């Protein structure tokens, strides 16, 4: 009964949100707000956040998404690339057979069945109801087993003392961290910083949205043109999909 109420309330609110946002800023991609949740309500598995990356649109040499991410989370390096944190990185691919070149951003793939969550001894690695995989740094003991287990090398260990953190990314020495899909933005109906930057730069290679909503732009695009998972053989059902691979 209360579920029904909540459902109707949510759908009412989301409709209100759509109406509101469209009148405020017409012409801007605001499909993401279709899942606005009241900010005192917990995230639910009605939503599964995901990303679709079109490698054909991803510009070689462009690091817009990476810069935006670093900026957003205050990720300043120490000039030691082996130990410095990277949430998202640009990967260049050259097909050995044909010489075909591909450029793409790679970050935590937010698996439905994340190996990092499976192996974490304390439960610090966890998946939110809406599919975003995070590290609870309050109970991370820094064993790095999740880094051993992640097939995407998506996680970094904080190797040094950190001061002056941003509010969006509390982070400290001795714990593991990775892409948060900008939960702090997403929870307030925003989109991840990398996606925003890519759109602002007019590349539009990254699309963010709800994979559970058949009417979201990402779902429609995936239905129409499909999208590959990296290491699909592991059957992790990643939240980040790629086109043009």
């Amino acid at each position, binding site marked *: 009964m209360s579920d029904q109420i909540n459902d109707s309330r949510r759908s009412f609110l989301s409709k209100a949100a759509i109406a509101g946002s469209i009148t405020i800023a017409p012409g801007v991609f605001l499909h993401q707000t279709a899942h606005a949740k009241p900010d005192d309500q917990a995230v639910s598995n009605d939503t599964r956040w995901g990303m679709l990356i079109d490698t054909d649109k991803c510009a070689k040499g462009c690091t817009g998404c990476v810069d935006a991410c670093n900026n957003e989370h205050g990720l300043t390096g120490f000039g030691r690339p082996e130990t410095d944190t990277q949430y998202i990185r640009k990967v260049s691919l050259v097909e050995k057979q044909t010489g075909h070149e591909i450029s793409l951003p790679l970050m935590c793939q937010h698996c439905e069945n994340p190996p990092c969550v499976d192996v974490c*001894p304390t439960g610090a690695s966890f998946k939110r109801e809406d599919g975003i995989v995070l590290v609870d740094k309050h109970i991370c*003991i820094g064993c790095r087993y999740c880094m051993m287990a992640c097939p995407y090398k998506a996680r970094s260990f904080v190797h040094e003392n950190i001061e002056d953190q941003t509010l969006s990314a509390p982070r400290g020495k001795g714990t593991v961290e990775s892409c948060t899909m900008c939960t702090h933005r997403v929870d307030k109906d925003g989109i991840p910083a990398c996606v925003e930057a890519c759109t602002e730069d007019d590349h539009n290679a990254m699309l963010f949205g709800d994979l559970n909503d058949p009417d979201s732009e990402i779902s429609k695009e995936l239905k129409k043109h499909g999208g590959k998972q990296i290491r699909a053989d592991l059957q992790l059902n990643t939240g980040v999909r790629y086109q043009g691979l």
Partner: protein
Amino acid sequence: MKKIEYTKIKGHSIPYYGLLAGLGFTILLGLLSTWYMEHNGHHVTGMTNQIVWGMPHVFAIFLIIAASGALNVASIASVFGKKIYDPLSRLSALLALALLAGGLVVLLLDLGRPDRLIVAITKYNFKSIFAWNIILYTGFFGIVGAYIWMMMDHNMYKFKKKVGLVAFVWRLVLTTGTGSIFGFLVARSAYDAALMAPMFIVMSFGFGLAIFLLVLMASYNWTGRELGDAVVARLRNLLGVFVAASLYFTIVYHVTNLYITEHHGVEKFILSDGGIYTNLFWVGQVLIGGLLPLALIYAPGVRTCRKTLGAISTMIIIGGMCQVYVIVIGGQAYPMELFPGYEVSSSFFDGVVGQYSPTLPEVVLGVSGMAVSLLLVTFAMKALAFLPSSLADSVADPHAAK
């Protein structure tokens, strides 16, 4: 066969205190290393975001594997009823506890947040083999501790066999758990094999017995007790079987991988192109840790030579360390294949062989774990009667008194 009499070691001599002091000093250095690593962060180690587990893990995993193997001698006596091993049971169990403690200390002190030990023992994710291992290790202390009690207390002696059986099963499960830490890693092509668990068990037989032999011979030599050839010859033959079995598993592991096209890359890396890892594999693991000891164990002429046996055991330990190094570090150094058929490059070392050069504090921390084990053994022998006063053939060999 006479009744075995156990006595404490006297432990009043200068060399004894010297040994304690030396081990204590090593442990102190290990603690200093930990402080240095934790204070500055792990960037002062050779470990990176590519090679996330380094030298401390090599030492820790070696010691943990060896711990369960060291219990073997006791298991053979109480589970399989081989009388000649019976007098060695107490030392075997003690060594198992000490080695496990040493390994766990290293593992703990390398954590990013060792101050959160309490979190590790209060919050469990039961899907994690790591969490299960924490339970298995704790249980091992309890069960083997009880086992020692049963062996030492005349009133409890009747339970020895049953507790010994539990301890034996537990140690098999424990090493399965340790092997599964790697076996359950689907991401990396060097791991992800069910074979990891039985392979670790077989490795444990060899490592544990080699350390056991060294400790046995050293303690009998230094305390002037008699150690007969009958016992030593048995252990020596057993060691030969274990080393051969370990080689067999190595062959099966690599041949299987060589058959699977997907794994050709990593096999080529370990077996021929991996530089340091290839050298450590062939020279360290196969030659020093396998073929040479085998040849020496079965070579005529040196069959009763204690020094040769000491050298053989040392070689097995060195080879074992190399083997664990190749598994732990080599397995991480080989890049993960995210995009088969593509050449990969990025700012995050994708598609590149991971570079790792261990720094001094890491090695010192690892060595101090070994020191912890030896210090515990050295001290326990003085506190309780672990060693038979004599293991002369007339005492130890059931067939000697004809």
